[in-house]
C-alpha cells in the first residue's frame, strides 16, 4: 500500500462531490443553451405556454426508455465493465413479451416475461464475464448478435403488434399531468441514485470498478458482484422493453437500434469514467436529456438528422476531453 499523506476522508469526499456538482451544472448549462437556441429559432412555438409545457413532457417522455437503460449501463461501467448488448436485450425482451402466446397471459404475463428475459440474458452476460473470464466487450458483443438473432427467429422477422390495451396504455397514461413513462424514469433514477450512493452494493460497485484486486482483498466477491451488475443492466433493459413496446404498440427484432451507443454516450457525458470506478446517476440522466433535447431542437427547426448526429458526436468528444482535462488537473493538484 502506498502511504502518502492522505487527505482526511471527508475532504476527498467533498472534493469529489464538488466535482460532480460542477459537471452536472455544466450539463444543465448545455440544456439551457439548447433551450435558448430553440427560443431564438422558433419564437412562435415558444410563445405558447401550452406548447412549451407539452414540449418539456415530450422531451422527458422520449428520454424515458433510454434513460432507464442508461441507469443500468452506468452501474456496469462504474463496475469496470461495458454492456454492448442492451439494444439487443430490449429487442429480445420486447419480442418475447409480444408473441401471441405471451399476449394470451395478459399484461402481467407480458411484463413478467420481459423482465425475466432481460434478467436472464444479463445473468448469461455476467456468467460469461465473471466465470468464463471473457472480456466484457467480447461477451456482450456476442450477446448483441445472438440476442437479435434469437429475436428475429422468434418473431419470424415480423413486427409483432401488441393487442393489449393495458400495455399500450402505459404510454398514454398520465398521473398528475405527467406521463407514466416519466414517472417510471424518475423512480428508476431515484432508485439507482440510492443504490449507488447509499448502499453497500453501490460502494462495492465503485470498489470493484476502481480496483478489482483491492476489492477482492477487501473481501468483496468480485465475480458475484460483476454478475449482479449485468443482471441489473438486463433488468433495466427488460423494463425499457416494456416502455418501448408500449410507445410503439409493437415489438420487433430490429427495435432499439444502437441503444447501446446512446446509453454509453449518455453515461460518459454524464461523467462516468469508461475505465470504471467513478460515475453518477444524475449525470447520466442529464446526458440522456441533452440528447433528447437535441433531437427535439433539430426537429422543430426541420434540420437534417445527419447534422444532428454530427453535433451529438461533437458533444461526446467535448465532454470526454473536458473530463480528461479536469481529471488530469485534479490529480496534479492532489500531487502538489
Amino acid at each position, binding site marked *: 500500500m502506498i502511504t502518502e499523506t492522505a487527505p482526511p476522508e471527508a475532504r476527498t469526499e467533498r472534493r469529489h462531490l464538488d466535482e460532480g456538482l460542477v459537471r452536472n451544472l455544466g450539463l444543465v448549462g448545455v440544456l439551457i443553451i439548447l433551450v435558448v437556441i430553440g427560443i431564438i429559432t422558433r419564437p412562435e412555438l415558444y410563445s405558447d405556454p401550452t406548447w412549451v409545457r407539452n414540449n418539456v413532457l415530450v422531451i422527458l417522455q422520449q428520454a424515458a426508455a433510454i434513460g432507464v437503460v442508461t441507469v443500468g449501463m452506468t452501474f456496469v461501467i462504474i463496475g469496470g465493465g461495458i454492456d454492448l448488448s442492451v439494444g439487443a436485450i430490449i429487442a429480445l425482451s420486447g419480442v*418475447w413479451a409480444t408473441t401471441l402466446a*405471451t399476449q394470451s397471459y395478459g399484461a402481467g404475463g407480458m411484463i413478467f416475461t420481459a423482465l425475466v428475459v432481460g434478467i436472464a440474458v444479463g445473468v448469461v452476460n455476467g456468467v460469461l464475464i465473471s466465470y468464463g473470464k471473457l472480456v466484457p466487450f467480447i461477451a456482450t458483443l456476442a450477446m448483441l448478435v445472438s440476442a437479435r438473432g434469437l429475436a428475429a427467429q422468434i418473431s419470424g422477422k415480423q413486427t409483432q403488434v401488441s393487442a393489449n390495451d393495458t400495455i399500450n396504455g402505459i404510454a398514454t397514461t398520465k398521473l398528475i399531468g405527467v406521463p407514466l413513462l416519466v414517472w417510471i424514469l424518475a423512480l428508476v433514477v431515484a432508485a439507482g441514485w440510492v443504490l449507488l450512493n447509499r448502499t453497500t452494493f453501490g460502494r462495492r460497485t465503485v470498489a470493484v470498478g476502481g480496483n478489482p484486486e483491492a476489492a477482492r482483498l477487501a473481501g468483496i466477491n468480485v465475480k458475484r458482484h460483476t454478475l449482479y451488475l449485468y443482471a441489473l443492466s438486463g433488468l433495466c433493459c427488460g423494463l425499457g422493453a416494456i416502455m418501448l413496446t408500449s410507445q410503439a404498440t409493437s415489438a420487433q427484432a430490429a427495435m432499439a437500434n444502437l441503444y447501446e451507443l446512446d446509453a454509453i454516450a449518455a453515461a460518459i457525458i454524464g461523467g462516468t469514467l469508461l475505465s470504471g470506478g467513478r460515475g453518477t446517476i444524475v449525470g447520466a440522466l442529464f446526458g440522456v436529456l441533452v440528447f433528447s433535447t437535441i433531437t*427535439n431542437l433539430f426537429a422543430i427547426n426541420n434540420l437534417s438528422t445527419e447534422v444532428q448526429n454530427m453535433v451529438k458526436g461533437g458533444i461526446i468528444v467535448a465532454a470526454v476531453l473536458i473530463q480528461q482535462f479536469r481529471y488530469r488537473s485534479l490529480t496534479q493538484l492532489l500531487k502538489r
Partner: protein
Amino acid sequence: MSASSFKLDLSRRRVLFGGAAVGAGALLTACTSNDPGTDAQVKTNASGDANAVPGQKVVIGFSAPAADHGWIAAITNNAKAQAAAYSDVELKSVEAGADAAAQRAALATLISQKPTVIVMLPHDGKELNATGLEAMRAGIPVVNLDRAFPSQAAYRLQIKGDNFGMGLAAGDYIGAQLKAKGVSNPIIGEIPGIDSLELTQERSQGFNTALQAYGFKVANRRPAEFTADSGQAAATALLQALPKMDALWNHDDDQGIGVLAAIKQANRSDFFMVGGAGSKSAIDAIVADNSVLKATVTYSPSMASSAISLARLIGQGKGLSDLVELQVPKEITLASETITKENAAQYAKLGF
C-alpha cells in the same frame, strides 16, 4: 447461530429460487410460440389458359436476404407459396445470409447445381452484378427481384417496384385531397425510412415532384428506420414541430404502426395520413376508418409471386398470353397503386 443451520437455510433458498427459475423457464419457452398463419399472395391462372397447363418441370433457385423486416419476410413467403401452387415447379431456396458476400457464396453453390432459372433479391444490385453475369453465362436465366443490376447482361428479367412512383402517388393523393378541401397553404409532414438508402431518396423525390404540381411543399421531414419504435420517435418529434398539420406521408407501413401510436399518444387528429407499402394492418385501418390513416400507396411483395410465375414461363419458353411476343418481356416495373377506403376490399388479399 450455527453454520449448519445457515447452510440449510441457504439450500432451502436455493431450492426455492431454482424451482422458480425452472418454472419461469418453462413458461417462457411456451411463450415463444407465434402461430404464423401465413397469408401468402398466390395466383395461378385457373382459366383455360395454355400457360396454366402443367408443362415441363422447372427447377427455380431462389435467394433473398435474411433481413428482419416484414416486407422481406413476405417476399420469401410469397415465393415459396407461389412455387408450391405449381405442380411443375420445384423451388430450391438458399439462405442468403447476412450480407452480399454471404449471398454470393450461397449463389455460387446454387449455380453449380444448375437450376433451370434463378430468382434473386440481391442484398445490393451492384455487389451481386458479377454473380448475375456468371449465372447467365452458365446458361441459367436470372430473374432480378426489385434491386437492379447495373449490367443489362446480368439478367433475363427484372421485376421491381416503383419507388419514385410511390412518392408520386402519395403526393398526388395528398395534393388532390387538399385541393378538394380548398386548403391554400397546407402544412405537410413527411416521415421517410432510412434516409441514406437510394430507395428512400427516390420516394422523396417523387413525393416532392407531385406536390410541386399543386404548388405545395413539405414543411418538415423526420426520418425513421423502418421500425415501429423509430417511427414512434420520428412522429413524436414531427408532431411537436408542427402543432398544426394538414397532411402526412409515412413511407412505410411497418414503421407506420409506431407513427399511428405516436399520433394517438399526442391526441392529434387535425390531419390525414397516407402510408406506404400496403401492409395488412394498414389496409385494415383504412377500411375501419377510425384513425388518421386514409390511404396507402403500394410497393407490394406480391412481386415475388409474380417473379416465380414468370420464372416458370421463362423456364418453359412460354410468353405472357395477352402479349403478342412469344417470350416474357425483359423488364417489368409495377405501378404503385393507391389504396383507399373505396377500393380496399380488392387489395385485402395483397396486404402482407
